[in-house]
């Protein structure tokens, strides 16, 4: 009896290993072959090109996981009620994991400000909530771009009003963009550098706004659709440009009702909203819940309906298992990547062979399979989100160092490079990381393990944001995990971080490379899409393969499980976009 029990146990573990292996193989095979159905999550297949009219990259999907996780309800458009008639009424309750440092959209770059305040504001142009990254007008009714690409003329709607009843005119739009692009001293504008091509902004009449550029930049229209460009009232800005840091007054679909610090934020429908019929909701209530487990508990217990940023795979599985058909899961590749910055001034990081060895040692494809089960990372890509218009195509990507499919060969090459660079076996260095559990911690642990396999001994040090940023900026580090999140897929945004240190203050790698700077400038002004792609890919190859100034680990995966009653919200690759809630409705 004793022996048979032991045998049963052994067989059991064999079985689970087999299941795991099979599932992983299946995942690997399905991921690499045919393109996903239209509207599918960002697969590695090449997508039709063109900056506009790109089909949206999000889809609801059943959570796949080793060990048979339960499946969610309806994939595809049913998740957000495609084709259904929106119903009016109800209050949307959602949770947000962080509190706003200030209420000023121009100053902040964090979802911790945006998710609370976006419903109160309008933008000049915005992304189509159901067709990212197509740009549609919000306050702008129509626009015209001059043939030479230097003049953008916007015609505004005439029925837009602020919540205090006063009309919103071109003067307000000009004042807003003057604050963003040409901030007065003492005023912080986080995205000022993004609009460096803009010469000036004019308001020739109350319903026309004109942007004049110094040089043509094909990305400009999309960049103007930044969800952070809240339209503010000119009168207020004239009196006090800091007013909006602690106060709310916009022209968006919802009025501001109350904010209890540490607790909740309430908004109510604005009846004079300039888009007829919207918003459908009577109001919304945002609740501050810091702990991820508590967030899941809130949704699970029916206290909240959705959390907009994204959950970890295990949290999604818990919700699906507990609530079954009441929960719908929307997933999408995320315009956020986790990468490792190298301090290119410190030996041996100043030796390109050492850096190359480090990137070769990491099994990205295997890591993607494994880590996507337990963390919010998934896709393997370069500096651009895989699946986005300018991403390096897969057949080229595998030729980059560290992106090949044969990890053993890569690791052998890595060891060889280490020998050439004179780095001894058991060499120790420190990897700095943020103390945020998701996804920094698991990726940090993963990296330490990968580098162990080529004989390197890595100290994993996690720090609070304050000291972490300090060290990054001052160069007090050897290698450090870092992240890059942008509001849209746009080479001008994603590539800017890796420019020479004297051009890009966000470059912590401490290197200068005029070739890169030149490539960047050229791609930014290149009007021909194909030519622009070639330049972008050259830039990526130089950063990731030739010089390995930094290495990208994995791209994030956005997982948003929510109550099935929440309709009219379609997931996009950016958690900053589509948060004004005007199209959201509740099915009861």
């Amino acid at each position, binding site marked *: 009896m004793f022996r048979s029990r032991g045998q049963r146990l052994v067989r059991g573990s064999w079985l689970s290993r087999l299941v795991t292996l099979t599932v992983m193989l299946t995942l690997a095979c399905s991921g690499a072959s045919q393109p996903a159905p239209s509207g599918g999550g960002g697969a590695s297949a090449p997508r039709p090109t063109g900056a506009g009219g790109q089909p949206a990259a999000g889809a609801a999907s059943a959570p796949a996981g080793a060990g048979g996780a339960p499946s969610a309800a309806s994939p595809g458009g049913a998740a957000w009620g495609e084709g259904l008639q929106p119903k009016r009424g109800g209050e949307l309750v959602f949770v947000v994991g962080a509190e706003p440092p200030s209420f000023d959209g121009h100053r*902040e770059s964090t979802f911790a400000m945006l998710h609370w305040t976006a419903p109160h504001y309008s933008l000049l142009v915005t992304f189509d909530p159901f067709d990212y990254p197509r740009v549609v007008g919000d306050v702008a009714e129509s626009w015209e771009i001059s043939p030479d690409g230097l003049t953008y003329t916007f015609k505004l709607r005439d029925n837009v009003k602020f919540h205090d009843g006063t009309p919103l005119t071109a003067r307000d739009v000009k004042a807003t963009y003057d604050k963003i692009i040409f901030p007065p001293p003492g005023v912080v504008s986080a995205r000022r550098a993004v609009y460096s091509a803009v010469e000036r902004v004019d308001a020739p009449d109350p319903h026309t706004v004109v942007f004049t550029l110094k040089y043509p930049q094909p990305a400009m229209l999309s960049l103007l659709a930044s969800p952070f460009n809240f339209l503010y009232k000119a009168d207020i800005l004239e009196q006090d440009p800091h007013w909006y840091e602690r106060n709310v007054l916009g022209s968006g679909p919802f009025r501001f009702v109350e904010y209890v610090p540490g607790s909740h934020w309430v908004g109510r429908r604005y009846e004079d909203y300039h888009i007829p019929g919207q918003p459908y909701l009577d109001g919304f209530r945002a609740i501050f*819940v810091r702990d991820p487990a*508590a967030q899941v508990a809130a949704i*699970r*217990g029916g*206290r909240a309906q959705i959390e907009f940023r994204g959950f970890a795979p295990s949290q999604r599985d818990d919700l699906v298992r*507990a609530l079954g058909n009441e929960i719908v899961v929307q997933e999408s590749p995320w315009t956020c990547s986790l990468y490792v910055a190298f301090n290119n001034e410190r030996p041996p990081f100043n030796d390109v062979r050492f850096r190359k060895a480090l990137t070769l040692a990491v099994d990205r494809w295997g890591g993607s399979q494994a880590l996507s089960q337990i963390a919010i990372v998934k896709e393997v890509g370069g500096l651009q989100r895989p699946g986005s218009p300018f991403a390096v195509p897969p057949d080229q990507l595998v030729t980059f160092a560290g992106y090949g499919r044969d990890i053993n060969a890569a690791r052998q090459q890595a060891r060889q490079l280490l020998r050439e660079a004179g780095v001894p076996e058991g060499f120790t260095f420190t990897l700095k990381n943020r103390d945020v559990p998701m996804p920094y911690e698991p990726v940090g642990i993963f990296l330490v393990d990968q580098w162990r396999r080529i004989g390197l001994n890595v100290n994993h040090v996690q720090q609070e*944001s*304050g000291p972490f940023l300090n060290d990054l900026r001052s160069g007090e580090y050897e290698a450090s995990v870092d992240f*890059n999140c942008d509001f849209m897929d746009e080479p001008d945004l994603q590539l800017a971080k890796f420019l020479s240190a004297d051009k890009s203050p966000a470059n912590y790698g401490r290197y200068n490379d005029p070739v890169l700077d030149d490539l960047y400038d050229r791609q930014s002004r290149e009007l021909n899409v194909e030519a622009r792609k070639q330049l972008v890919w050259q830039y990526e190859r130089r950063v990731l393969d030739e010089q390995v100034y930094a290495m990208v680990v994995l791209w994030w995966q956005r997982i948003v499980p929510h109550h099935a009653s929440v309709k009219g919200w379609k997931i996009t690759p950016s958690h900053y976009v589509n948060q004004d809630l005007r199209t959201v409705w509740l099915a009861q």
Partner: protein
Amino acid sequence: MARYILTRLLLMLPTLLGVAVLTFLLLRVVPGDVVTLKYSGEGAYVPRETIEAERERLGLNQPLWKQFVDWVWGVARLDFGTSMWTGRPIAQEIAIRFQLSLQLAIMATLIAVLLALPLGTLAALKQDTWVDYAIRVFSIAGLATPSFWLGIVLILFLLILFRWSPPVTFTPLFEDPLANLSLLIWPALAVGYRYSAVATRMTRSTLLEVLREDYIRTARAKGLRERAVVVRHGLRNALLPVVTVIGLEFAFLIGGLVVTEQVFNLNGLGKLMVEAISRRDYTLTQALTMLGAAVYVVVNFIIDIVYVLLDPRVSYS
């Protein structure tokens, strides 16, 4: 007697001053700057001049001694300043969270006392029987289990069995008692259990000692009923150290429940403290630390006075 009270009162001041100095210096030694964190915490780049201008406005560039004196002078006038992170008055920030923390502390204390006194007495009376052992194991288990662990298990238990989770926002007790209690009862239980463990053990051991005393034997010899002996003579004398322990633990509950508040998502002083420190919000952290220290020192003072009044054996030295 009055002199004793006065002396003890005066002795509180150097302690509070010491805490003030320690907090002040400790915070400024720690790397990280509230302005840099606020502006470019997520990686966005902000020019040097803007950061310097804001630091200037917050008074961070002044010499340390001046910052300290300004702050202490403000506290003396009951002006606690504004939070460096949010710009709101600190008194307001604290007031929003104080109600919840106070109510939780009181509820946990009540639960602790309701558990500890009967259980401790029972254990003392039935010493070395299985009842005693069971109670002792129960209370040591309360000391040994991490309270945040208990909290997590409690929430999961509610979710899995009843498909119910506590409310996520706080409503004051008199506005909506049901919502208020259904939020706070769970953390109160988790915290109260641990709290009761300390008090149970204290009750048991002091009662055991007291019951060995001569005057108890006299009371029994006089023919008094056992219950009168235990309660009127025994428990009353044993109560003093128990009250001490309860008081000291209560002082800790105001602002000390950092992990519990995180697990149960409570908008309390503990959570505020963690946020204030992570953001290097000097003024808010200092105010909260002073609040915690003041509560502790005042509770100690009250306990000392109670001791002197109630226990004739303690001298005034």
